[in-house]
């Protein structure tokens, strides 16, 4: 094990919980993310594939200590997303609940402030999110949705790229407790 990988595995600065987002940001940020997901693709259709609510969920999960809060935060964001779609309420809720839980669990073991780890986590959870949503839509709703693996991988990479500066900005909003 190299010194670098050892540092990634052993150091987890976010776990110390020194800085956290203010309560108002916890509400405003996901609302902005959902609003932009609803509004912006009208003018730039390509940005429909930018899953900002997912990235916000992952950021919250890796910057908090316990998976419980991340789980409920992901669920709340998912349910709001469900409310703005024409699918039954709970589809995005379940997926983002799992994302929040697993992302928080991962953050316990890795240095999630490392850009490479952030990139990999966001890429993985985007793919997980899309794949699990597809599974739920097929299994629970019986919808014959298409799952384009290649396209999902590409958009996973793009989302992960967007996550790097986004996480930096969100980190700036955190304050010491």
């Amino acid at each position, binding site marked *: 094990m190299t010194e670098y990988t050892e540092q990634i595995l052993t150091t987890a600065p976010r776990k110390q919980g020194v800085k956290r987002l203010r309560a108002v940001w916890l509400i405003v940020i996901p*609302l902005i993310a*959902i*609003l932009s*997901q*609803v*509004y912006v*693709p*009208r003018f730039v259709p390509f940005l*429909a*594939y930018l*899953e900002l*609510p997912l990235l916000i969920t992952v950021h919250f999960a890796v910057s908090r200590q*316990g*998976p*419980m809060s991340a*789980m*409920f935060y992901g*669920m709340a964001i998912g*349910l*709001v*997303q*469900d*409310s*703005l*779609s*024409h*699918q*039954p*309420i*709970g*589809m*995005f*809720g*379940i997926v983002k*609940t*799992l994302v929040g*839980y697993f992302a928080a669990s991962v953050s316990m073991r890795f240095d999630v402030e490392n850009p490479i780890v952030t990139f990999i986590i966001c890429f993985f959870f985007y793919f997980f999110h*899309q794949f699990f949503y597809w599974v739920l839509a097929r299994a*629970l*709703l019986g*919808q*014959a*949705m*298409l799952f384009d693996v290649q396209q999902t991988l590409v*958009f996973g990479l793009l989302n992960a790229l967007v996550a790097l500066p986004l996480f930096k900005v969100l980190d700036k909003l955190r304050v010491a407790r």
Partner: protein
Amino acid sequence: MDFFLSRYRNLTVLLIVIVAQLLLIAYQVKTNRDIPLIRVWAVTAVTPAEQVLEVVRRYTWGFVEDYFVLLGVKSENDKLKHENGDLKLENHYLKSELSTADRARALSVFQAHSQSKTVAARVIGNGTGANSKVVFVDRGSASGVESGMAVVTPDGIVGKVVDAYPTASLVMLITDPTFAAGVISLKNHVRGTLKGQGHSECLVDYVQNEEAVDAGEWFYTSGDDRIFPKGFPVGQVSAARNGKTFKEIYIKPSGMQGGVEEVLIVLEGVHQQIPDSDMATPGYKILASPAESAAQATTPEANGTFLTTDADRLREQYKQAGAAQNHVFGEGVPGSKPPDFTKIPGIRANTPASAVPLGAPQPAVPPKPAAVVPPSLPETSDADSGAAAPAKPPADRPPAPRNP
């Protein structure tokens, strides 16, 4: 048990939350009901912000564009460029106003001449989810909008309302993969089911391979789905080929070309007639129907039916003869005396004008004195008789009016 719960507390809570949401989904799918409270909260929280954003965008985007255009102007031409910029700005503004006025006028003309009761709405946002083709419009249940209402433009159908909230409604576009509607072709009256594909084109399914559908042919709503009134344009066939079981017919939706900005929500739909095609079978010239027959066929009577065949007219004559002799058809025993049909005046002569509707919402054939169809909706709409008389579509346009 306590040890287990404390040891695996997070996992237990996760499982409870997941199961709770699964039950929520199961309830909605099983009962086909929604959870309106959560949706109303979310939509009421998000749509006002969207409306504000939309207003800000509309009033600022033109200025921002012109600002960037003017950034590269050379200093010695500042004055001239400034004047030019002002003119551009004014021109842009006037064009924008004209375009908006044109669209609004087209909508209002269509609204005024369409027999269906409609309400105009503006698209204010998209639905969530990468694959979903749903949009929010700024009219909700407060304006009388309800789930299941059709959404159209003068050019064609756009979608249907899937959820109505107080301030906004969620409209599923016809390109959504879960969308379906009954359609009928213009030339050969081939019926099929329109299905969204998730992209710009739609599929017409369940059309037998033996049916004749050509590229360029128009499809209209058939009214079979009880959502879209009959006779609204759907789109033009872009490709039609034989498939394994059914034909593969792809349609370019006419109502969504150039984007969807302003739409009409059909509050109370009235079925319309599908305009006559030039030729049902290419290569055969079909004469216009005789004026006499057409006049007979369109004269309404009190009993509410149209006589369209000789047999119908003959039957009516016999009924009148029976009534004149106080005979009630269907009540006499076998062998009883029948009415004297020899007293029917001019039994071989032409029939009286006693044509009345078949019970269809609109007269089957509007009067066509010279078999000429007026070019625009205001002239074709027969407001006095209540008959829908849509215009005959040109070769490359739907019959609905744009800017009369």
